[in-house]
């Protein structure tokens, strides 16, 4: 199989305007992936499927990833002017101070596609797409029109992560029921508080059971019933 750099070059040559970024993989697998933009996703996917030297005719797996907002603390050296009294005379002196600055890197949702070529016996190629954010911009083009095998897996990602795949022929929840409002695989998902009976609690479950107990006790004290 060609290297990801070659594939990236081939995509950019074939689909004009397509922006492809190589996402390195620092783990022992060292399998880099290609991050593609929304606009040309369908064209890129069709190219990968139909180009004779690519022929990625088999979509093996689609998965979702939730990247929550990340708070990054950085130490920055800041030079500022300080008024100091030296030898009885007020002087303005430059002073270098180390300051910790926090910035929030906005999170996003990601879908990861693994493709193989049955015809050319190569693969996998890993494609990624990212949403704008985790709240109101969770759309992403569907690749089901290109690989039919993505249909149920994209539905599952929609169900558990809340990524809305535009162009998907039948985007409904697949595992949870239709009236369900949450996205259980997101990092900030809050489970229903049904920890009333935990006979052998430990670690996180113990904490949840104690929290539940405290909530129930507080409710009983205020006389809220039940």
């Amino acid at each position, binding site marked *: 199989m060609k290297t990801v750099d070659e594939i990236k070059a081939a995509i950019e040559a074939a689909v004009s305007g397509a922006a492809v970024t190589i996402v390195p993989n620092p783990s022992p697998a060292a399998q880099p992936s290609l991050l593609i933009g929304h606009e040309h996703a369908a064209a890129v996917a069709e190219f990968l499927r139909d180009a004779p030297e690519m022929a990625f005719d088999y979509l093996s797996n689609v998965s979702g990833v939730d990247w929550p907002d990340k708070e990054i603390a950085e130490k920055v050296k800041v030079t500022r002017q300080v008024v100091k009294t030296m030898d009885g005379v007020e002087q303005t002196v430059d002073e270098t101070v180390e300051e910790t600055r926090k910035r929030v890197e906005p999170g996003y949702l990601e879908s990861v596609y693994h493709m193989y070529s049955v015809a050319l016996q190569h693969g996998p190629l890993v494609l990624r797409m990212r949403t704008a954010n985790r709240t109101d911009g969770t759309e992403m083009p569907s690749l089901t029109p290109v690989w039919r095998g993505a249909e149920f897996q994209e539905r599952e990602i929609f169900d558990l992560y809340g990524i809305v795949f535009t162009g998907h022929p039948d985007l409904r929840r697949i*595992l*949870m029921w239709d009236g*369900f409002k*949450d996205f259980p695989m997101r990092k900030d998902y809050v*489970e229903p508080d*049904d920890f009333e*009976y935990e006979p052998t609690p430990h670690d996180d479950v113990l904490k949840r059971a104690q929290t539940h107990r405290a909530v129930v006790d507080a409710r009983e004290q205020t006389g809220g019933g039940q």
Partner: protein
Amino acid sequence: MAVDNELKIELGKQGIFVTTIEELYNWGRRSSVWPMQFGLACCAIEMIATTMARYDLARFGAEVFRPSPRQADLMIISGTVTKKMAPQVVRLYNQMAEPKYVIAMGACAISGGPFKQGYNVLKGIDRYIPVDVHIPGCPPRPEALIQAFMTLQKKIDGQSLTGEDRPRHLDAEAPCEFPVPEPGEHDLEPSSNPGVWTVPVVIR
């Protein structure tokens, strides 16, 4: 008992069969408990094995697995009850005619098992319907299911037809239908049926 047991045996030797309506009635009930044919997870495989020749549940009068709840007496909750499946399980139970019994088979059916703290699994079917026999195990072996079945038969045998502890189907006041939980926005609503299940007291 109106007839002394020794006298009964003695009469039996002489070819005279003495019984009571209660005994006859319970014998009939316990000897033809027909399970409903449905499985939820891997426990169902053990349940199927129990009915096959090696373990042969037919010895206990339970060989006929009925494909319709209308014809079944026993519901074997064989496996994980997901929150999506729970309303259907309760609905099927409601459709069964009295007298009806429930065996909760395996860790998942009795408590949620290894999936207890998951968002999608019900923490025990006894939150919605009354369970007669619980079997621990993951999955329980066929012997355990047979043991549960014999326990259920003993329970049926010990019931008296009148009085306070008479079986539910002879008590006009007792409920035979149980509210079906509604799939809500975050969880099943209600999360348990307080008429059937209350939070057990943990003794440490």
